[in-house]
C-alpha cells in the first residue's frame, strides 16, 4: 500500500533562552490511504506538535528543523505558506481538542461551513449551502436545515464537535488529523463522537491520524498505533499486536496500567518516575531511568526502531546485533 502521508526523520525545535530544545526528535511514520493511525503518549511526548507540523501550523517559536513530510510522495513541508494553506482543509482536515472554542462565536455554523466549502470547492452559494446542510445531516445534527443558522453557543459540546467534524470534512479531505478530539467531552459523548468519526472516515475513505492519550479509544478505532515517548516513537505496529503483545518496556508499562474489569489486583501497576522534561532527556534511551529491564547499553546508545516480532520498537532488547558492534558503529 502506497503511503498517503509519510514523515521522514522529523525534528522539531523549540528555541529558548537557555538553548534549543528538541520537542520532536527523528520521528518517522507513514499513514496509508484510508488508514487510522493512533498516536498515544503522555502529555509532552510530542504528539500534538507532530500533528501541528503535519498541517503546517506549528506555533512559533516551535519550528520544523529537519526531516520531510510527504503527501502522496510530494514534499509539503517546504511549500510556500499560501500553497500549504490550499492543502489544509482540502487534502488534510483537522479536528482540535476543544469543540467549545474551535468555532467562531460570532458567526452561524452555516456561514462557517459555507465559507470553508467555498474556499476549497468551486461551488456557488446555493450549492455550498446545500452541501453544508448535507454535511450537518451526515454528522447527525438533528434538524440540520433549521439549525443551519444557529450560532455555536446554541449547541452542546458534543453537537459542536459534530459541527467541527463537518467542517473538517467539508472539502472531502483525504486525511484528518484529529488532536485529542474527545478529551474535552464527557464519556458517553466521547463514544458517540469516536463512532461517528470512524464511520464517516470509513464511508469517505479518509485516513485519520488520531492523537489521544486514551488507549481505549485507540484500541477501538485505530488500525495501527504509534507510542510516543519524550519526542520519539517508542513503538509502532498493528493495534492488536501493540495492545496484546507490547514489545517496548514503556508500552508494556502503559498497557499494564490500564485496569480491566476482571482484574483482582489491589493496586494498578504503574511506571515509576515521570517522563523527562525536554531539557533533561538522558543520553541513550530516554526511557532508561524508568526501565525495569535497563541494560548498560541503554544508558549510552540511543536505539532506533528495531523489528520486534509483529511491531517495531526502539529498544535494545530487540537488537539482533551485539552491543559491542553497535558501540563501535
Amino acid at each position, binding site marked *: 500500500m502506497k503511503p498517503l502521508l509519510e514523515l521522514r526523520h522529523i525534528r522539531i525545535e523549540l528555541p529558548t533562552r537557555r538553548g534549543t530544545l528538541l520537542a520532536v526528535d527523528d520521528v518517522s511514520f507513514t499513514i496509508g490511504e484510508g488508514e487510522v493511525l493512533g498516536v498515544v503518549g503522555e502529555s509532552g511526548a510530542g504528539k500534538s506538535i507532530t500533528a501541528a507540523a503535519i498541517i503546517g501550523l506549528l506555533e512559533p517559536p516551535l519550528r520544523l528543523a529537519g526531516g520531510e513530510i510527504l503527501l502522496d510522495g510530494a514534499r509539503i513541508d517546504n511549500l510556500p505558506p499560501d500553497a500549504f494553506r490550499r492543502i*489544509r482543509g482540502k487534502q488534510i482536515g483537522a479536528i482540535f481538542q476543544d469543540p467549545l472554542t474551535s468555532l467562531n*462565536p*460570532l458567526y452561524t455554523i452555516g456561514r462557517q461551513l459555507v465559507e470553508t466549502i467555498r*474556499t476549497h470547492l468551486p461551488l456557488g452559494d446555493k450549492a455550498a449551502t446545500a452541501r453544508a446542510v448535507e454535511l450537518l445531516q451526515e454528522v447527525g445534527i438533528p434538524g440540520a436545515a433549521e439549525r443551519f443558522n444557529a450560532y455555536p*453557543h446554541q449547541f452542546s459540546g458534543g453537537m459542536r464537535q459534530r459541527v467541527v467534524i463537518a467542517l473538517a470534512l467539508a472539502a472531502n479531505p483525504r486525511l484528518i488529523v484529529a488532536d485529542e478530539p474527545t478529551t474535552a467531552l464527557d464519556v458517553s459523548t466521547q463514544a458517540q463522537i469516536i463512532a461517528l468519526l470512524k464511520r464517516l472516515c470509513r464511508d469517505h475513505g479518509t485516513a485519520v491520524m488520531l492523537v489521544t492519550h486514551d488507549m481505549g479509544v485507540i484500541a477501538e478505532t485505530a488500525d495501527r498505533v504509534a507510542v510516543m515517548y519524550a519526542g520519539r516513537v517508542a513503538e509502532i505496529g498493528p493495534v492488536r499486536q501493540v495492545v496484546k503483545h507490547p514489545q517496548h518496556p514503556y508500552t508494556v508499562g502503559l498497557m499494564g496500567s490500564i485496569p480491566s474489569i476482571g482484574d483482582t489486583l489491589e493496586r494498578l501497576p504503574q511506571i515509576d518516575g515521570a517522563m523527562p522534561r525536554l531539557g533533561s532527556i538522558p543520553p541513550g534511551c530516554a526511557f532508561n531511568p524508568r526501565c525495569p529491564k535497563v541494560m548498560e547499553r541503554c544508558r549510552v546508545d540511543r536505539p532506533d526502531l528495531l523489528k520486534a516480532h509483529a511491531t517495531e520498537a526502539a529498544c535494545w532488547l530487540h537488537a539482533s546485533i551485539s552491543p559491542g558492534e553497535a558501540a563501535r558503529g
Partner: protein
Amino acid sequence: MLAFILRRIFQAAVVLVAVASIAGLLFPYVGDPIGCLLGQDARPDQIRELRGALGLDRPFYVQFWHFLSNAVQGEFGLSLRQGAKVSRLIGERLPATLELSFVAAILALGAGIPMGVYAALRRGSFLSQLFMTLSLLGVSLPVFLIGILLILVFSVTLGWFPSFGRGQTVDLGWWTSGLLTRDGWHHIVLPALTLAIFQLTLILRLVRSEMLEVLRTDYIKFARARGLTNRAVHFGHALKNTLVPVITITGVQVGSIIAFAVITETVFQWPGMGLMFIQAVSYADIPVMSAYLVLVALFFVIISLVVDLLYYLVDPRLRMQRGGGGHGR
C-alpha cells in the same frame, strides 16, 4: 428589545436628573456672580437690587427647586453675563463642538483601527514598532502641549494652517457649519488632530492588544486549519471578535472627546461649548455651567445607549440571551 430600550431611556432620565441635581447643589459654592457683573465699586443698594432681580436672595432650596423644575423642561434661564437665553447660546455653540468632535472621532477611528490591526499582524516590523513608539508619545503628552506644538510647527513655522477660530461658516438656519467651506476645513485640521491624537493612540494600542489576544484563540487556529485565506482569517474572523471591547472603549472615548474638547477649544479659540464653559466658569455664570453639565451627561447617556445597541449587533450571544429570556441584565 423594545423593553430594553425603554428601560435604558428611563435609566437615562434618572441619570440626567441626578446630574442636574448635583449641578444645582454646587451653585452656592462656585462663587458670587454679582461681583463679576457689577464690578468692585458697586453700591450696596445696586447689589441688593440685582440680587433680587436674579432671584439670588431667595432661600437656597427655593432656588434649587426653581432650577430643577426648569431644567427638567430643558429650560436653563438667562446667562448672567450675556443676558441671553442659555438655550440660544448653546444652540450657537453646539455645532462647532459637535463638528470638531465628529471630525476628531472619525480621524481617531479611521486611523487608529487600521494601524492597530497592522501593528498586530506585522508584529515586530519596522512600521509597527514605529506606531507603538509614537503611540506612547500620544498617550503620554498632554493635549494642550500637542495643540501648542502643532500650532508652533504648522501655523507659525510652516504657515500651512490657521491657528485659531472656525473660519468661514455657512448658516443653515438651525446649524452653522464650517464643514461646507474650504476655509472651514482648513481651520478644523489642527484642532481636530489635537483632539484625535490621544484617542487615536489609545484605540491603536487597544485594537493591537485585542487582536493579538484573538489571534491566539482556538477558533482562529481552527480557521487556519480549515485552509481559509489569511484575509478571511484576519479580517473576517479576528477583527470582528476584537470589536466588542473596542466599541466599549470607543464609546467612552467619543463621550470624552465631546466633554473634554474644553482644552482644545481653549488652545485654538474654537467657538464651541467648551470655550463657552471656561468663560462661564470665570464669571460664575451658573445657568450656563449647569446647562453644559446636563448636556454633557446627555451625550454620555446617548452614547452608552448606542454602544449597548452595537453590542447586540456584533455579538449573537447577547442577542440570544435577550431573545430567550426577555428579562434581566
